[in-house]
């Protein structure tokens, strides 16, 4: 279970950034007073436009960066003081994280398994399951530099899941994947949920969120604008699909778009 309470994250701005913003304020609040809970056996979706604060929230959750205020608890471990235990519990996948292209999928997966302190036989076992499921077996000995974007994405998923984590955080999990692999990934997330795992995904693909998520939070300008089940979001916004619900909230928050 994940518990995020009053999460706030500010970044100090450089003079260059201040000039670009045309502002004298020397910090930017990326996330402000965010609280939510994600339960075991649940898929939770974070939806929001670019720069809304989704990635910052997930980075804080993965202990990559420290919150300015608030607390994060992952399966009983405090993010601020028990970072290593938190990281042992979770898988975090984002486009920003890359794998060394010099190695093969087999070596890379084994390397990360070892860093998670897994015994060799367990690594072999997990590798077989994940390689088979995501179709990595056929290119397990090929250098990553020679793989296609989709293959690399599949491998990233495998690497993130090698230690059989209890909490899975995927930032845009189907980005760059073909329709078949994308389906395999979402099905696997469903499978993980059924196994009692806690899953958080961040996506801008409303149909993915609608199909996959038990609950969602819509985040804009660093704040949660709506949180609940899909039906609760529909009733809150008076809409009958997530696209319209999202834009309703977007308009209410003062957002607009130019075509």
């Amino acid at each position, binding site marked *: 279970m994940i518990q995020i309470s009053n999460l706030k994250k500010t*970044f100090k701005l450089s003079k260059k950034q201040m000039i670009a913003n045309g502002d004298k304020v020397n910090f930017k609040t990326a996330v402000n007073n965010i609280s939510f809970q994600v339960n075991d056996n649940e898929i939770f979706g974070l939806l929001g436009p670019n720069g809304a604060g989704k990635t910052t929230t997930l980075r804080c959750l993965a202990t990559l960066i420290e919150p300015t205020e608030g607390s994060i608890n992952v399966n009983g471990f405090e993010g601020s003081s028990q970072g290593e235990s938190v990281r042992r519990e979770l898988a975090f996948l984002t486009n920003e994280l890359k794998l060394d292209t010099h190695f093969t999928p087999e070596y890379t997966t084994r390397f990360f398994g070892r860093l998670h302190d897994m015994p060799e036989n367990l690594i072999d076992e997990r590798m077989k399951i994940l390689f088979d499921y995501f179709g990595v077996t056929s290119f397990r000995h090929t250098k990553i530099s020679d793989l296609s974007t989709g293959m690399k994405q599949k491998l990233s998923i495998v690497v993130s899941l090698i230690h059989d984590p209890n909490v899975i955080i995927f930032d845009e999990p189907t980005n760059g994947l073909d329709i078949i692999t994308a389906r395999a990934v979402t099905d696997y997330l469903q499978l993980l949920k059924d196994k009692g795992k806690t899953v958080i995904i961040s996506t801008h693909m409303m149909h993915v969120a609608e199909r996959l998520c038990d609950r969602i939070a819509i985040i804009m300008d660093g704040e949660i604008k709506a949180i609940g089940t899909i039906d609760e979001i529909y009733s809150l916004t008076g809409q009958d699909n997530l696209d319209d619900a999202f834009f309703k909230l977007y308009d209410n928050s003062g957002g607009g778009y130019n075509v």
Partner: protein
Amino acid sequence: MFKSLMIITKKELRRVFTDKRLVITSFILPMLSIALIYSMMGYMIQRSQDDLDSHVTRVIGSGVPLAIMDMMDTDDSIEFITGNFDRNTAEQLILDETYDYYLYFDPGFEAKLTAFESGQLPLIEGAYSPKSDQSINANYKMRALLENYRQTVLAERIGDASYLRVYDLATAGIEIPAQNQGIDRGIANLVPMLVSIFIFAGAMSIGMDSIAGEKERGTIATMLLTPVDRGVIIGGKVISLSIVALISMISSFIGVLISIPFSLNFLSASGVFEMSQMSLGGTDFLMFFISMIGLVGMYVTIISVLSMIANSLKEAGAYITPAYMVIMIAGFMNMFGSGTVNPMNYYVPIYNNLINMQQVLLGDGNFGKVMISFTTSAAVTIILLGISRKLMHNEKVMFPS
């Protein structure tokens, strides 16, 4: 922690040793290029010396006394061309390198010499081209020849040449005890600088790629998601880099050894060096190795800190190049320093290790001083490691965007 450290170290080493390009550029190319460059330099210097040695100096002159002509005649390396050359024509011929030297004697030189009136000494003028090595060499030859002539004239004037001798001078180098003999002074001065530069150069390219490159490519962030302390991650990188730097340094040194048959004329002060003549013992090698390890630790952590601060490989290069220059300056300072060492210098990081290496090679190594320097180096290395660890935890450094 140790297990994770080893896993990361092994991965980093695997990254280097399974990459043909890295192996070639870090270990083979330095060896080959150094062997080639040093051999070529030695060969060119030798060829230039051989040219000078085999060259017959062509001297022209006016009013040259017969005795001097006879002296030139007996020297196979000098050819005297008689003729009436005025000074301007002669100078032009020397500048054109048609001839190497011009000798001019006062009219009636020999008569004035015989008459000898104090204060009215006859004049000999010589002219050479400072642009031509052969002409410069001709100047040395002619000065020596004229000095011999002077001695002959003086002996005739006094009547007994032995009057010219006022004492016998016998100087000899004091015999140095075997344990302090060390190796050739020229090599002892040069080797610490080469070792220092080779270590830094070896660690530089791979260190930049291993840290700044991984940051730029986003691969280091993936490791931050594992339950491994960030200090362990940087520690693994530092250990592997140290190993790589040492191997690269050894490879470069093999290059120097390969070049020795050709390069001794500029590497060694005496021009002679044989491994069998080396009188360094086990303790000397141990002291040398400790000094070297001190340098490796500091260089690798300096490169690590600068690579961490940088957001890209290009930026890392811009930060590390000035550090490389400082390392080179320290090497040159030690190479051309005077013999006396200020005791405080043994506390100056980098420079102290270079002094110790030099002293060890000269047979004057002191274990106490080596350990003082090593302790200083270890302290600097630990501080820099601490800074690296802190930087790994710094969000602005690790996630600048």
